[in-house]
């Protein structure tokens, strides 16, 4: 690990001023950054610890029924929040299926969205072709082990996926990230946050240097929502595929509106917007739901070794929807 200098910010303004300086990396929970430093994925001159910045570790219900979650709230504390449990269960479930109890006591909800792909070539301790590690070096996964890779939105430059579970829940909830920088701030839709390889492999998300996530906003409650994570062991493992769904039921327990997102199939959570529109008016267990999901998945372009994930995605999306609607499969 290369030497770096360390400082602790005590206010957001102080953090924003320091974070802008080139060579500065921000430390929140540390569960990703320490591994980046060890692997050489990051080699900053300065590490700015923002964990003691006041005010970013609170969850505030707002008068209009929405919820503002400070970026530094630890994952376990987001999941334990009564409002989240009652009105946004998909987020609670996604968090409880993330990492381990120990990691969730450290990892923050804001920085969880900044985690990088788990592609083993990207995370390699030894020099390996990876356009994200060394620009122009190629993609070792493209002709190598590609069985945990993308179904959508990849290019020959990178076939990796984004592993965050909470990001999938936040995408299905149409959550927004509120950011701050020394020049101001903005509101970014979760679904617009991550950058696909077609746009560039030099960045993971749209944040600019010195721009920090201040909070995450959940708008409409989604009490009927659920998260399904399919993985090679029961717990403490990344997803092969995950699915998040929300549903509102109308007359005759038919779907008024629904939202579906897949995880670990692209470098961002992947919404099935066409399918969402097509299933309105159907019962959650109507065969037409499976047809609509199939039609959405027909647009996938899986990398060769990951084609098996299509069948998992189909089942996970359907199961998440039925679980959200509280209908037994």
């Amino acid at each position, binding site marked *: *690990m290369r*030497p*770096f*200098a*360390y*400082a*602790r*910010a*005590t*206010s957001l*303004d*102080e*953090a*924003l*001023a*320091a974070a802008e300086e080139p060579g500065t990396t921000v*430390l929140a*929970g*540390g*569960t990703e950054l*320490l*591994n980046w*430093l*060890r692997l050489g994925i990051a080699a900053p001159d*300065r*590490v*700015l*610890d923002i*964990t003691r910045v006041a005010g970013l570790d609170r969850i505030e219900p707002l008068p209009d029924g929405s919820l503002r979650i400070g970026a530094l709230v630890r994952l376990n504390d987001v999941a334990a929040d009564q409002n989240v449990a009652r009105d946004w269960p998909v987020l609670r479930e996604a968090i*409880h299926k993330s*990492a*381990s*109890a*120990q*990691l969730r*006591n*450290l990892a923050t909800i804001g920085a969880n969205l900044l985690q990088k792909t788990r592609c083993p070539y990207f995370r390699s301790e030894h020099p390996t072709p990876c356009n994200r590690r060394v620009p122009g070096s190629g993609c070792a996964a493209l002709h190598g082990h590609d069985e945990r890779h993308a179904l959508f939105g990849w290019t020959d430059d990178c076939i990796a996926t984004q592993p965050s579970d909470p990001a999938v829940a936040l995408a299905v909830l149409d959550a927004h990230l509120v950011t701050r920088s*020394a020049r101001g701030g903005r509101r970014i839709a979760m679904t617009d946050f991550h950058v696909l390889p077609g746009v560039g492999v030099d960045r993971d998300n749209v944040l600019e240097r010195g721009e920090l996530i201040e909070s995450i906003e959940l708008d409409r409650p989604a009490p009927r929502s659920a998260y399904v994570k399919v993985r090679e062991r*029961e*717990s*403490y493992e990344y997803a092969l595929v995950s699915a998040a769904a929300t549903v509102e039921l109308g007359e005759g327990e038919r779907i008024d509106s629904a939202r579906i997102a897949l995880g670990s199939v692209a470098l961002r959570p992947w919404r099935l917007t066409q399918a969402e529109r097509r299933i309105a008016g159907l019962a959650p267990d109507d065969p037409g739901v499976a047809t609509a999901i199939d039609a959405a998945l027909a647009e996938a372009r899986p990398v060769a070794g990951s084609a098996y994930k299509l069948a998992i995605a189909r089942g996970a999306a359907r199961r998440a929807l039925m679980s959200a609607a509280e209908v037994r499969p």
Partner: protein
Amino acid sequence: MTALEFATTPQFADRLDVRLRVNGVDRQLDGVDPRVSLLDLLRERLDLTGAKKGCNHGECGACTVLLDGRRVNGCLVLAAAAEGREVVTVEGLARGEQLHAVQRAFIEHDAFQCGFCTPGQVISAVACIKEDHTTDEHEIREWMSGNICRCSSYPQIVEAVKAAAAAESRPTSS
């Protein structure tokens, strides 16, 4: 002029003095390299070698310690970032010769073979019980999943956690 222009700049340092309360004792460590993890600080500077360095990537849980009462992976915390915090390691559980109830339960249920993961398992179990994640075997397995045991003593570990949780919820007779 914006408020930001008045913002103070944090002082970056390449050596830090770190104060911690470890197992109930205030400690001060001078000249700590910012790269040092809490785990390495405990093991190398304080000779508390209970917490183990297994994977050093947050994958095995052998380094689990309590930080301000919550279980965390010691390998993923910078020592500098733990300034002023309270740390409990496996060495801090016993009261003199009297082992902690979770330690006794691990012995009674034969919940280890080689023992390398045990300090992390025990600390994690103490937290798991305090968090009340011990309703049934499934919940214990889920909330103890951050501690890997290569000897695969999982059934015995689950039994130990279950027994220690039950003992804790019973009023003490002594």
